[in-house]
């Protein structure tokens, strides 16, 4: 069968289908918990790519309907922004190594 170690669900934090299914099999079926324990949707894409797939895996494994799974909150800022930009200062000053 397919190698679920090699199926990436969360590209940002490199979470595989295998890891998600293992957690669900352990009884963690709340998307909020799955999100926090695996850090799915907490990377720079902020869940845009992965959350629909997580919802469908969860629906399939628990028999819930996708509309019963509440979408985790969308946090500010909806795009990752350098702190310096928010203070109005972002001239590249060559400070990075």
């Amino acid at each position, binding site marked *: 069968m397919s190698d679920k170690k*090699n199926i990436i669900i969360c590209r940002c934090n*490199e979470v595989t289908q295998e890891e998600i299914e293992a957690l669900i099999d352990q009884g963690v079926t709340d998307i909020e918990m799955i999100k926090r324990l695996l850090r799915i949707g907490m990377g720079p*894409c902020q869940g*845009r*790519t992965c959350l629909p797939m997580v919802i469908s895996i969860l629906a399939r494994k628990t028999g819930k309907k996708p509309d019963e799974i509440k979408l985790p909150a969308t*946090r500010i*800022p909806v*795009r990752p922004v350098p702190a310096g930009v928010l*203070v*109005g200062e972002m001239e590249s000053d060559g400070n990075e190594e």
Partner: protein
Amino acid sequence: MRLTEHPILNFQEKRGRKVTIYFEGQPIEAYEGETIVMALHAAGIRVLAYTPNKHRPRGLFCAIGKCASCLMTVNGIPNVRTCITLVEDGMDIRMQRDKPKLPKDAKPSKWKDAKKVFGDIVIIGGGPAGLMAAINAADAGAKVILLDENPMLGGQLVKQTHKFFGKREQFAGVRGVKIAEILEDEVRKRENIEIFLETSAIMLLQDGDEKLVVGVRKNKELIEFRGKAVIVATGAMEKMIPFEGNDLPGVYGAGAIQTLMNTYGVKPGERVLIVGAGNVGLILAYQLIQAGVEVKAIVEAMPKIGGYFVHAAKVRRLGVPILTRHTILKAEGEEKVEKAVVAQIDERWRPIPGTEKVFDVDVIALAVGLRPSIELLHQVGCQIKYVPELGGHVVIRDSRMETTIKGIFVAGDSAGIEEATTAMLEGKIAGIAAALEIGIASPEWLKEIQKAQKELDEFRAGPFGRKVLEGIKKVVVE
């Protein structure tokens, strides 16, 4: 890897001044006006980063600033979205392999307050819905602020080389690229529309009676946009599906491939497998052939072609097989896609052993559907609902496109996945409705809303509209 001739598009005229950028210290030729990742792709660079823990290669995926798969360090600043950042002469571009290190000798920052821009209506997204909203809101008398995070207006229209369906007054028979030009001209003609490109909206807030949209321009400048109403027309993003090797560079969203070849004239690869025979997959196949790329096959898990038959017929007669009831099992390759394995599936969607087929391809295009980009609406607290007919989570709204928060409107794909034609009509409705609500438009404009609503009803009256109407029933409240 750059296209020099094309049956529809002319890239030679469009390309800007030649500049040099540096990838890992190596000089690369680029043209002003193109994004970093396009220039890298044209130079054959597919791998943009390695993930910090599992060291998996990363390439682009969405190419419209949403998926964060193209993050690189640019001029020392980590995590820059290179798919929507334009090249500049001498730019230093580095792959990210690990989590970044910070300098010990940085100096504390000084701060200045954000630039402030005031208008009546702030429109987020300059695609078909946002442009039509801007034109109509402006004509109804509103001062309009229009933002888009891409370097050009038009949204996904700018990469649609095919001609649109619908009625001729809705631009039927006109190519998407041309529609983008027409709408952009209209927008630029109007003095009461102020345009901010390369500007991402990072939050949407209620501030007393006003709406505050906080934007970041060119990764650098903080701008506060204030208006009495906001229209969110942020479009959609491509869905990803689980299969082995689905994160390998070369597995691209269909839209990303269109951006490469149709917006920037960069050949996405030589041989392509397309997953999904909806309109996006079918149109993409035809566009690939037009760009001189071989399409090995289109696989579709459903038992029938989901897109318009006429789009399928166009690629079939050019020799592209469409394998219904097939799915992708695996993308194979070391650093990037080299092979795709597909198989037939049974009624319960399980692959049938022994039916595997291997295609030698360097690109796998995912055209498996879109989902509305509702982040700002969700973040500000609009009520949302899961409606599969509209592509996933969408906001509750009324027939004039106003969400559950007064003064916040939605239009186009961010209101539910549909067509550019319906996006334009919804944009028109939202633009006028917003101008009416804030007391700027005269009541005669109601007629224009009714006219657009009638056209929407007509457009959705056929079998393809039926599913959408089912979905709309679930989200429209009065």
